């Protein structure tokens, strides 16, 4: 993807094939996260740290907002309890939404972040030069920058033995983000290819979905109409494509929404939450 190509086909890169754009998808990996099931236990976050070689930066750097937490649990309070201020929070697991019209992609000067035929928002670490434009352009704030090299401090021997060999250990000056566990997707696709079949629903389970004790996270291919995630999207009348999808507010069964849909980024994650009247 050269600069010339990006400039000439700017609008086409922001659209799917059905709207006359460039993207011909083989899969469209997506998620459904049920916030009514989420108990905020942070198991997904921990699993993500273990699976994706996330550096532990330490409290000082974390306070400077330099932490690496591809999967984070955001907390919101409807009303503050005066005696116990931590009580009554609602949780929202926030990770890269793998938008189909991602704002991070067109701003990368070296095309280190781009859209794959799998509908994933890819980050090629060895191509990244660390300009941090993508992070500044991300409305979800889910891109994390390696301000330092954490290999020595985060995994002192023998802890380096726990590193996942299927994913790079990122070094200083590289942007990183949730990949929807691309190493697991890759492995499932390789296995399917060896067995001469297509990837089946349930072949790929991301680390967060696997760890979730309440099974609030469902991962799968939204292009496969029989997958669990596609059925959930259909049930809650959320579909692909940019623009806000308005639903009748009177139907309490329709809980699905996508965060920042109004920005036309076409995110791949549907959240489920019942709108409560008392708020």
């Amino acid at each position, binding site marked *: 993807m050269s600069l010339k190509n990006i400039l000439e086909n700017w609008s086409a890169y922001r659209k799917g094939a059905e709207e006359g754009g460039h993207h011909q998808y083989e899969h469209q990996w997506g998620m459904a996260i049920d916030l009514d099931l989420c108990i905020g236990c942070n198991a997904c976050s921990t699993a993500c740290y273990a699976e994706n070689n996330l550096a532990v930066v330490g409290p000082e750097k974390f306070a400077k907002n330099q932490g690496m937490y591809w999967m984070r649990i955001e907390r919101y309070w409807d009303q503050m309890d005066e005696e116990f201020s931590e009580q009554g929070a609602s949780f929202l697991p926030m990770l890269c939404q793998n938008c189909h019209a991602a704002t991070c992609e067109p701003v990368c000067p070296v095309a280190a972040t*781009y859209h*794959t*035929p*799998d509908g*994933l928002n*890819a980050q*090629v*670490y*060895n*191509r990244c030069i660390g300009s941090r434009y993508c992070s500044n352009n991300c409305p979800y704030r889910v891109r994390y920058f390696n301000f330092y090299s954490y290999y020595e401090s985060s995994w002192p021997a023998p802890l380096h033995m726990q590193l996942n060999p*299927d*994913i*790079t*250990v990122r070094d200083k000056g590289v942007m990183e983000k949730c990949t929807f566990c*691309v*190493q697991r997707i*890759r492995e499932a696709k*390789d296995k399917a*290819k*060896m067995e001469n079949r297509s990837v089946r629903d349930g072949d790929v389970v991301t680390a967060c979905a696997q760890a979730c004790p309440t099974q609030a996270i469902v991962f799968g291919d939204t292009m496969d109409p029989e997958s669990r995630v596609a059925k959930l999207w259909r049930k809650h009348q959320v579909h692909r494509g940019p623009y806000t999808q308005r639903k009748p507010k009177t139907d309490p069964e329709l809980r699905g929404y996508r965060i920042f849909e109004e920005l036309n980024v076409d995110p791949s994650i549907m959240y489920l939450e019942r709108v409560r009247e008392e708020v």
Partner: protein
Amino acid sequence: MPFSHHRLKKAVRRGAVQGCSGRAVARLLFLLVLMSGWGPVMAELPVPEGIVVPEDEYEGKHVPQPIEFPHDVHTKVNQINCMYCHTYARRSKVAGIPPTSKCMGCHKIIATDKPRIQKLTEYWERGESPKWKKVHDVPDYVHFTHEKHLKRFVFDKDFPVEDVYQVCGVCHGNVMEMTVAEKQRSLTMGFCRRCHEANEGPGDCWACHK
């Protein structure tokens, strides 16, 4: 490929290489002839049917191994298939090096009087395996699977399995003519891309980069 020292000789005659005494030049030439493997000229590796072999020029360093394993004796003289020892190639990402037990399967009986085999037997009796050094390596950010490549070029196309060395040779060079393996292909991204373009492999960054 034997290094053409005629060109250098000509250059010396023309005076292109100046500031060298005749003796130094002779010494240099001698060294070059040594390095180029003058003696036997290496046999060209046959091009496997159905693969466009990417152009590449590379001469890797000699990697000393704990035992100078003779690939040529095993594969050329004794006609052992690559996948007999590198059995994981068709089953996983890595080709793997065989466990010492596999070596000893034959070498308990065969060629026990040879010094290399005696060294191997010492390792075996100590319960250790020789610490083989990796010759063909790709960086950590590259995902490469042997099994998919073998499936694409050998098993899916009914390529004769006994000629699999030709397919292996696209990336590994003519191992049949080597003792310990030497890197004959650059295995750079350019090399991979040339092959992927010619043979219609995936062109997506994330197909190989992780």
